């Protein structure tokens, strides 16, 4: 049976949407990006722009978990010795406040693995058996085992959510598309530091009616699955 989620184009392109070949990726929904006392908050960004994704993602998780979809969470963060932190990334991060990656913030060291601020927000805590990918960059493929896990599991379709739309979500979606994965971005399940950048990113994804994949709202996906279940 063929299923299509309405959106930029009916997704997936061939209608082959099943829990066995489809994964949800929740990108970097960490306190450092979405919470008070986290990294992004320390830069003066209004975290309401990233927190807006929490409720829609929570609802999506509730829908997809009982149906058996494969769920993956990612976290951006560095080793405590910062051996995986490029010198230019370290330098840039310290320019605004003097406190860059690895410096002590209100909750712990910014963007360092194991710190409370590096954790995923409690509303979206990974369930047992769900995969967590720790990455040092914006994209989720470089320096990780994400591709190996997806191939072993037989995943072909990826549903992308998380933060930020213009940074880690976009890098991961582009890298996934080059690898042949059929991607959909759920617009209401993402957020950027500014609404303007979120909107501009969605606009870029609209070129050629989906050069990198499709774009839809989470309701579109949930409705399509309910009709068929």
């Amino acid at each position, binding site marked *: 049976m063929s299923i299509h989620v309405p959106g930029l184009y009916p997704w997936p392109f061939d209608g082959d949407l099943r829990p066995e070949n489809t994964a949800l990726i929740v990108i970097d929904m960490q306190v450092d990006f979405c919470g008070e006392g986290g990294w992004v908050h320390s830069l003066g960004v209004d975290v309401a722009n990233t927190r807006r994704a929490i409720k829609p993602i929570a609802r999506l998780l509730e829908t997809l978990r009982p149906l058996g979809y494969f769920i993956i969470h990612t976290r951006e963060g560095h080793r405590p010795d910062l051996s995986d932190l490029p010198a*230019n990334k370290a330098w840039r991060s310290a320019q605004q406040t003097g406190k860059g990656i690895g410096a002590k913030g209100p909750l712990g060291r910014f963007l360092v693995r194991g710190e409370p601020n590096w954790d995923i927000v409690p509303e979206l805590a990974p369930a047992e058996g769900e995969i967590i990918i720790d990455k040092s960059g*914006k994209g989720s493929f470089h320096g990780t085992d994400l591709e190996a896990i997806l191939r072993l599991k037989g995943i072909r379709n990826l549903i992308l959510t998380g933060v930020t739309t213009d940074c880690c979500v976009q890098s991961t979606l582009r890298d996934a598309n080059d690898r*042949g994965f059929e991607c959909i971005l759920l617009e209401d399940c993402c957020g950027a530091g500014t609404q303007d950048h979120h909107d501009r990113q969605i606009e870029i994804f609209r070129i050629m009616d989906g050069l990198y994949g499709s774009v839809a709202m989470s309701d579109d996906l949930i409705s399509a699955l309910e009709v068929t279940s």
Partner: protein
Amino acid sequence: MTTRPCTFPQIASRPYNWPFDGQFSPNDTALIIIDMQIDFCGQDGWCAQCQGDPMPMAAVIEPTRRLLEAMRAAGFWVVHTREGHREDLSDLAENKRWRSARFNAEIGTLGPCGRMLTRGAPGWEIVPELTPLEGEPVVDKPGKGSFYATDLEHILRTRGIRNLIFAGVTTDCCVHTTMRDANDRGFECMLIEDCCAATLPHNHASIMSFTQMGHGIFGTVAHSDALIAAIS
């Protein structure tokens, strides 16, 4: 061989002077020119067949040629990339083929410049003004990014390159995918704003804005005049 200064001072760029840690030289810096192919810049190329306007891309050929000549004269290494698929299309993802077919411009089928986005076809060639010289590597890639399924990272590391200067097309697609992937790998990147273009100018502008957020989260943006003046 003439003697010339082997290092150059930082370039005026936004949001910081590049590279972040001071000087650069032909020993540690390369120019990468992305996908300046007839399929993207030509009136009869693949992009035009997809109803995209190739004029903005054609317009950056001349400034890119000027930059290329200045970089070559100063002794810098130049890497060229080409997007295109094997003749048997064994590296073409089914969804990419399907998406292109919706525009009646299916990758691998015959267009006015030969098989579209297919290696060896006339439309897949780099525009004559920017023809690679002997000793300048050409990286053939099946996707938007230039690192995936290629030896780009290997050749850059082997040569000791750590700074990358970006030109080419399209800004919002292959150029930025490659710049993002380079940045994640620790390369210090600078995008030359007048030597890259997108089919839609507002998307080009958005990429300039994304690049500069977070004090240069992906690197910096500069005009070719500043770079050419510094190395000439």
